[in-house]
């Protein structure tokens, strides 16, 4: 009995409720005529699509910069990479890698500036990160219209300039990573091996990095800045590094997302993209001050599972699409829970 109580306390009520909710959806699915294998397939695909962006939260949380609501900044770097690779008409795996290669330096530069900014505003990082994300997306809206891209696959047909709101990458590199070593189990269930391997590789690298000297220093900066200062760690440098890392992962994350999704979404597309990632890592058990790779994996499965299952199952049950509303309530409720709980622990 005591063990159960401890377990509940460790995991936290919201997480248990969400896990139970997801489980009941999976149990209900066959009864309301939703194919279980198709649902599992969708969950797996979406897990792979979104995993990297959730992983991007880890370094900044660990270094005490809070949840990275400024993820759109990294996403923009990724979009620039993706759009440029389409412009260059590179296809297949090379296409995706080119996109990542182009996105990386942009993400590093943007992340570095963003990190310097966040160092100046210690204590209110999250609010400012949100608005840095928003304003950069709005600025890029103008840039997408103005930048000199010429490829007829991407610009508006009649004007001959200005990028379209959604650009298909199907002819270039859709599923270029997902399809590596992918195999089908049956008609509805396929396993995107390549995407998972890539995600796990990044997870492993991140986990290794967190164990290195620099990674440990980063964690110390987050958990006890005074101690870090006393042991000679350069706080600002560590924080900037974590922000650069997070922004870069955001860029890689969105390219992973696009290669699976098949479309590049520009303009207001990335506007709210930080919120699902933030919600996912929090559902996985992270707090505003602490996050681990396990949190990322558990959280992404739970959150994306709910996003996949609610439309199909609830739709079949009550003939209405409530998934959007449920998504808003669950994701923001989770963020709210994390924000209000962290102070309680501190005081």
């Amino acid at each position, binding site marked *: 009995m005591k063990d159960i109580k401890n377990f509940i306390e460790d995991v936290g009520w919201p997480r248990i409720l969400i896990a139970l909710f997801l489980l009941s959806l999976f149990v209900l699915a066959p009864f309301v005529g939703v194919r279980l294998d198709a649902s599992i397939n969708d969950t797996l695909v979406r897990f792979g699509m979104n995993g990297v962006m959730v992983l991007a939260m880890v370094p900044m949380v660990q270094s005490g910069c809070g949840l990275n609501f400024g993820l759109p900044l990294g996403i923009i770097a990724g979009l620039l990479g993706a759009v440029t690779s389409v412009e260059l008409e590179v296809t297949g795996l090379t296409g995706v890698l080119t996109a990542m290669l182009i996105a990386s330096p942009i993400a590093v530069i943007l992340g570095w500036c963003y990190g310097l900014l966040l160092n100046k505003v210690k*204590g209110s990082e999250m609010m*400012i990160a949100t608005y840095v994300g928003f304003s950069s997306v709005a600025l890029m809206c103008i840039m997408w219209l103005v930048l000199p891209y010429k490829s007829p696959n991407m610009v508006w047909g009649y004007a001959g300039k200005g990028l379209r709101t959604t650009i298909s990458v199907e002819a270039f590199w859709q599923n270029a990573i997902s399809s590596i070593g992918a195999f089908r189990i049956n008609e509805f269930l396929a396993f995107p091996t390549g995407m998972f391997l890539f995600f796990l590789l990044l997870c492993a690298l991140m986990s290794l990095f967190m164990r290195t000297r620099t990674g440990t220093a980063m964690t110390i900066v987050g958990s006890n800045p005074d101690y870090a200062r006393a042991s000679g760690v350069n706080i600002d440098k560590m924080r900037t590094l974590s922000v650069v890392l997070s922004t870069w992962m955001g860029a890689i994350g969105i390219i992973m997302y696009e290669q699976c999704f098949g479309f590049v979404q520009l303009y207001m597309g990335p506007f709210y993209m930080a919120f699902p990632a933030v919600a996912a890592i929090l559902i996985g058990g992270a707090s505003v001050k602490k996050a681990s790779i396990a949190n990322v994996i558990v959280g992404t499965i739970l959150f994306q599972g709910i996003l996949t299952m609610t439309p199909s199952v609830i739709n079949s049950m009550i003939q209405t699409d409530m998934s959007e509303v449920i998504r808003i309530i669950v994701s923001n409720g989770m963020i709210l829970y994390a*924000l*209000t709980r962290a102070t309680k622990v501190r005081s």
Partner: protein
Amino acid sequence: MNNTNKLRMFLIRNAVPIVFLVVSAIAIPISRFSLDYLIQEMLIRLSRNSFLVLSLLVPIMAGMGLNFGMVLGAMAGQLGLIFISDWNIVGLNGMVLAAIIATPLAIFFGWICGVVLNKARGREMVTSYILGFFMNGVYQLAVLYGFGSIVPITNSKLVLSRGYGIRNTINLDNIRRCLDDLIPLEIFGIQIPVATFIVIGFFCLFIVWFRKTKLGQDMRATGQDMPVADSAGIPVLRTRVISIVISTVLACYGQIIFLQNVGTMNTYNSHEQAGVFAIASLLVGGASVSRASILNVFIGVILFHLMFVVSPMAGKYLTGDAQIGEFFRVFVSYGIISLALVLHAWRRHADREIARAQFRGQNADGGTK
């Protein structure tokens, strides 16, 4: 020396409004709007938005930053308007009834918001922001699924064709401009919504009076320093909740005034825009996260909306593409909030570093090195 210093301080303090003034001054001739049109437009927008922006003042006084939770008040106001549209109550009566219905809801929402923010001391702004999103989900759940099924709605014009849930846009013809046109006045062909300005004027007086009351003083003390206020016997947490409740209720009235002027309501969008635009206006007026006056409100509304009206046309004539001006407008609203937040946090951070350095008995600039 002292004078140049003062000038520099003035410029730094008012950097945001000055930048706005300069940009507008350049953009107005380019946009080719007539002066008459602009004055009329500014008057309308002043009457429409001032009340919403004024509702932000009280929480700033209590040191809780910009109340992004004012969205909750706007939601309450819209719920009130949905009911009076359903019952088809016309004119000023309808408006007042909407306010009466919405008040208890707004108080309740405000109380929730206050309690939540008390649990997240030190990060009120981001929490109230997320709370706005969260309550938006709850609002959608109620209005999209509850109204017409659990809550009875008789007017079929309001309900979606599937039988429940409110339509995306509601026509508020029955209360359209009822407050604005209560006392008609026209000078040189420019209509002035006198009654609305009287309401706003009363509200400004209320704020001035409120600052002098015991509660107002308590709030200012709480805003200055919570532990000190606490040891002085001020019920800090309660005071903070009250400040948020007041702000939410006022935002609710503000939204009703706003919508009676606009005349149509986007059931699922109007409240979200209210928050962003009100906060951007206040910051453009030279207010900061910790200091805002009534003057900031009016300057802010005029400057922000001047930009808002002028920039799409200016952008169109400059670049030949109307869309760029449109996006520029969005960029400005978000950019200005980021800029103001960064400036404020920056200053606070610098103050803290200086204080810390002095505490350690070093030079003020020896901070982190």
